[in-house]
């Protein structure tokens, strides 16, 4: 045992991880801590900072598009805005959001462990994340300005433009490395550190989805790493690899890019689905419907999701056979996703649904994700895809999936777990108000994109024909509503951390998973002794009995 760390005794209670005095004091006690909970909080602070920046760039883009022609910035700056918005939101927010924050904080607790398998590696991956974030920021301030290629860095423009593409590419490379290490850590943790009594089918469903995500992170990310590195090498040393002027094939770059970046979509959505499966049974007070189907559908999504990348490229020129195969596989991915949606709605059936803030976000998730998912399946059809390719229909679609899906699941997780993490409750009423504003703003912002995309509004365009003006105008108004909602939501959290009602109750919502059996906020060691898990985590016997009685 290490003796130089003194545990603080408070009234016979173990100190929480927030009060715990380790080797270092003050800020060093956080940025040098290998405790998975503190690393989770570090991620939370940094990820939310970048999220705020991403929102700002998105807001500026929308503001520019409020009227045709030049409104606030010139076309070049607009290109930089959407590139920054994409790079920040994808690599710095949505990929690490749920796994790095809630995965780090709750994965060990959910499986009855005291930490992840490699705590120091875990801290190292946070430092990599910060390095990647700083590189992305450097691209903004260094001479040349931020990249204007879009987050896809398509060749040949990305080797020709004078902007700081290299910084952005290196940022994505380093962030990929961080993501790989987190994934590696989670896989090992799930395999090695589950409480001895926790078999695979006693794991909470969020653990299943973190596990599936981790595999995609480990197996897909190296491809984007090497691809972006090759572009950097091509830019710096003029090695001929993808640039057609040097004999390369730009379409090959697109394949390499999407071999990672499509599975990355599932890195983003799978943890969100895990959160939904976690929260629904708690607030429906009912056993989850089809536990094994949900668990295996996570794995199926991870598997099939890795084989559909070329549906991003139906218009670049591929063999017909290739297009058919990728079209078919794209349809196949919809099956496990739909299985989940059916299971969630079946869980709600005859449950006693409690509309607490986390549940509101989850119900919105199912609604918005279904819109996003169905518009996605439409694009799997080659004929439709060629019609809507590169229009704002696509932009609407993936914001419904990514923001309406993962983003809302992330907000749900914040409302669900934040009180547990800090031992302070937020204002429920204000949270509900914020939800309705966000939900309204979201639909006002993105639904017009689907319509005008269908009518032919190209994506990433700086200017547009007057006939699209009403849609753009409504959409921009929507962005303001959404941002007001976000501000209310986050202010609510910040106020709750300082002045919120203190809670010590272990089980806030009536959940059956392990995090609700430990102190609020958790102690440094999580568990005084490794818990014994008797059944799978979503058994709500009381409610089942009530339903049975009602039948009789």
């Amino acid at each position: 045992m290490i003796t130089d760390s003194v545990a603080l005794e408070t009234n016979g209670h173990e100190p929480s991880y927030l009060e715990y005095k380790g080797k270092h004091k003050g800020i060093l006690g956080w940025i040098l801590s290998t405790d998975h909970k503190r690393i989770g909080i570090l991620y939370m602070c940094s990820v939310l900072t970048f999220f705020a920046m991403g929102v700002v760039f998105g807001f500026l883009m929308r503001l520019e598009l409020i009227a045709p022609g030049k409104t606030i910035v010139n076309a070049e700056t607009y290109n930089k805005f959407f590139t920054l918005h994409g790079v920040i939101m994808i690599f710095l927010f949505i990929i690490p959001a749920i796994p790095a924050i809630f995965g780090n904080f709750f994965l060990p607790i959910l499986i009855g462990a005291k930490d992840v398998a490699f705590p120091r590696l875990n801290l190292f991956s946070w430092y990599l994340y910060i390095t990647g974030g700083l590189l992305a920021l450097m691209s903004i301030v260094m001479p040349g300005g931020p990249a204007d290629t879009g987050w896809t860095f398509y060749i040949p423009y990305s080797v020709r433009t004078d902007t700081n593409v290299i910084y952005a590419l290196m940022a994505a490379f380093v962030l990929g490395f961080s993501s790989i290490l987190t994934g590696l850590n989670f896989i090992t943790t799930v395999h090695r550190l589950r409480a001895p009594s926790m078999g695979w089918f006693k794991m909470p469903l969020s653990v299943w989805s973190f596990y599936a995500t981790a595999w995609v992170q480990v197996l897909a990310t190296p491809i984007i790493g090497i691809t972006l590195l090759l572009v950097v090498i091509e830019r710096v040393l003029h090695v001929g690899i993808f640039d057609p002027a040097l004999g390369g094939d730009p379409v090959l770059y697109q394949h390499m890019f999407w071999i990672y970046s499509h599975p990355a979509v599932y890195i983003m959505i799978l943890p969100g689905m895990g959160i939904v499966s976690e929260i629904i049974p708690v607030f429906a007070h009912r056993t989850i419907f089809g536990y094994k189907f949900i668990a295996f559908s996570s794995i199926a999504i991870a598997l099939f999701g890795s084989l559909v990348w070329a549906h991003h490229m139906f218009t670049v020129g591929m063999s017909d056979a290739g297009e058919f195969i990728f079209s078919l596989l794209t349809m196949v991915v919809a099956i496990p996703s739909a299985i989940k949606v059916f299971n969630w709605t079946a869980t709600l059936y005859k449950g006693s649904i409690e509309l607490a803030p986390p549940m509101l976000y989850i119900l919105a998730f199912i609604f918005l994700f279904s819109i996003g998912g169905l518009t996605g399946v439409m694009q799997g059809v080659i004929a439709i895809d060629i019609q809507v390719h590169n229009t704002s229909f696509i932009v609407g679609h993936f914001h419904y999936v990514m923001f309406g899906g993962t983003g809302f699941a992330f907000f749900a997780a914040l409302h669900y777990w934040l009180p547990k993490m800090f031992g302070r409750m937020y204002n429920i009423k204000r949270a509900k108000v914020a939800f309705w504003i966000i939900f309204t703003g979201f639909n006002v912002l993105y639904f017009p994109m689907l319509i005008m995309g269908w009518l032919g509004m190209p994506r990433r365009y700086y200017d547009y024909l007057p006939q699209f003006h009403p849609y753009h105008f409504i959409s921009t108004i929507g962005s303001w509503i959404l941002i007001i909602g976000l501000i209310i939501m986050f202010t609510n959290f910040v106020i709750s951390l300082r002045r919120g009602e203190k809670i010590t109750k272990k089980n806030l919502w009536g959940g059956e998973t392990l995090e609700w059996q430990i102190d609020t906020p958790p102690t440094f060691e999580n568990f005084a002794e490794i818990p014994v898990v008797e059944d799978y985590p979503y058994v709500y016997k009381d409610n089942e009995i009530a339903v049975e009685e009602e039948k009789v």
Partner: protein
Amino acid sequence: MTTQAQVHSTEHVHRDDVGARLGMWLFLFTELILFGGMFLVYSVYRFTHQAEFHIAAKELNTLVGTFNTMVLLTSSMTMALSIVAIQRNNKRLSMFFQFLTILLAVFFLVNKFFEWSAEIHHGIYPGSETLLNEKSGKILFFGLYYVMTGLHGLHVIVGIILISVMMRFTSKGVVKHDDYIKLENTGLYWHLVDIIWIFLFPLFYLIT
């Protein structure tokens, strides 16, 4: 499963050799896929520029390549022997084999250095005028040649650093006969470096 309950100090340090090995294998997967990406690019371009790849490969020195393959294979053997030595509690022999591995790795890099200098001397390097006037297949071949062997060389350098650290660990007794997972994982990494070369060698030197 028993390992996790055993040691739990306040800093959450625990020993789990199986877990450490699992983590290392996962990391090696990512390395394989990293190089796999480049092999994918290689195979696409070789398919589209068969004749030009064939001709370009003639400019590489097969003899030096073969020699380097032997050096690297031998170094893998000495690495494995160092692990066997530590298992038998022979610290000095283990360190000797680790040192030999480093020596062979350095030897490999020196060879590589002379090989690259010779090619650069002939005007074949990325962005050179000689190369840019050639057909695109040849530009791609040499682009991939420099990038792939270069990245492999970088892995050799990392390997040398890792094995040096292991030598220090062995001498200090951090790596010992009943706790040698760090050395074993370094060994796994070194074998990966070796295996990648086993694929690089025929694909660049032997397709003439």
